[in-house]
């Protein structure tokens, strides 16, 4: 016998009422939540706010077929569902019907099965809604044919490294050119005293006197100078050639 007094003393106005349906009973409402099993013996409970009364109703998922229906359709909190008790016999394998009011275009409501092999609802065939649109298909095809976009960060690092290498090479070339110029200068510098000394000591003693063979000395000096200049020019041309080759 129930302890009605104790139950009334502990009455929780906020506690949901357990749904104990009979054959033909229908419950329509909004899912508020589903409690998980606290222990092996505990029963999962689906809490529904009944549409007609606004009361919270606890739907026990102890019936295997109802539990499977819930597991298949996975109604989320906030979704509107309808449950009908077809049979009140506990041993009946299909006691309940579950419908979830989802905004799925193209998914038609399930027909009431007349047999075990009753066909399922019509399949989705509206490609315009469920399939990929033209824009989506084009996007995919374009993505397939495009090369991977360069990683901007990686690209900048790569360019940075290339620039550093170019700068390093240019520094080496400049240093080499400076050495070449220094060598040329030393050659030219060393050639000029030779040009002066090639005229002999008499030339220095008779510096004030016009030399007897003034024309010849000048010619020899010119020849020497031209030879030195040619040498310098040849060196410079060689330097240019080397620079171009590098």
């Amino acid at each position, binding site marked *: 016998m129930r302890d009605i007094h104790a139950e009334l003393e502990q009455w929780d106005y906020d506690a949901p009422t357990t749904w104990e349906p009979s054959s033909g009973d229908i419950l329509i409402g909004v899912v508020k939540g589903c409690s998980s099993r606290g222990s092996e013996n505990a029963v999962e409970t689906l809490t529904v706010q009944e549409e007609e009364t606004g009361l919270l109703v606890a739907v026990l998922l102890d019936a295997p077929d109802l539990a499977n229906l819930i597991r*298949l359709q996975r109604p989320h909190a906030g979704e509107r569902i309808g449950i009908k008790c077809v049979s009140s016999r506990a041993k009946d*394998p299909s006691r309940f019907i579950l419908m979830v009011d989802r905004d799925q275009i193209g998914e038609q409501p399930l027909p009431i*099965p007349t047999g075990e092999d009753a066909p399922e609802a019509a*399949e989705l065939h509206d490609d315009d809604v469920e399939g990929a649109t033209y824009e989506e298909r084009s*996007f995919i095809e374009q*993505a*397939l044919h495009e090369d991977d976009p360069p990683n901007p960060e990686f690209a900048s690092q790569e360019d940075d490294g290339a620039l550093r290498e170019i700068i390093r090479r240019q520094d080496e070339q400049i240093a080499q050119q400076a050495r070449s110029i220094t060598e040329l200068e030393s050659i030219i510098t060393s050639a000029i005293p030779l040009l002066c000394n090639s005229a002999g000591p008499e030339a220095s003693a008779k510096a004030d006197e016009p030399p007897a063979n003034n024309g010849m000395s000048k010619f020899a000096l010119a020849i020497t100078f031209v030879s030195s200049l040619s040498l310098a020019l040849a060196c410079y041309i060689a330097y240019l050639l080397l620079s171009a080759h590098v």
Partner: protein
Amino acid sequence: MIRLSRKRLGAFLEQTRELASTTDLLIFDAAAGADAKVMTFARAADEVVLVITPDPASIVDAFATAKVLFRSEPDAKVRVVVNMAESQEQALKVYRALESAVRQFIKKTVYYSGGILFDSRVSSCNRNKTPFVLGERSLHVSQDVRRVAGLIGSTQVARQAQTVGMQRAA
């Protein structure tokens, strides 16, 4: 199996739950496409793996499947495996094409779980009715499959769906 009535499918799923105590992972190979029955089955799965090929039609089909799935299961986490790829680079490129489309149009994410290279010797194994993963372990494709399987089996995932549905034991 997808052609089962809802009652039979529910009974089947109930029986699969009985295997939960002795099984770590159950894999169901469902049909391709965004079929309503496939979606129903996919929603019952904890995880989904989309197996695609470099064929654009396959990628578009997978995208449509993902679109329908995410509509009913916004929290779905979908894996992608690229099959019959010419190279791992191509497989990755195919995945990125699908992932970018999903991210662009559905605002969701699909996860890459590996690529399996094409190998003509798989066909000969099939003719001999020998699983190439067991009969030709040295093949690159066998190693690819093992790597993908290891990746899927080891990573913790939330409940998600696919053309291949998986249920993880609790």
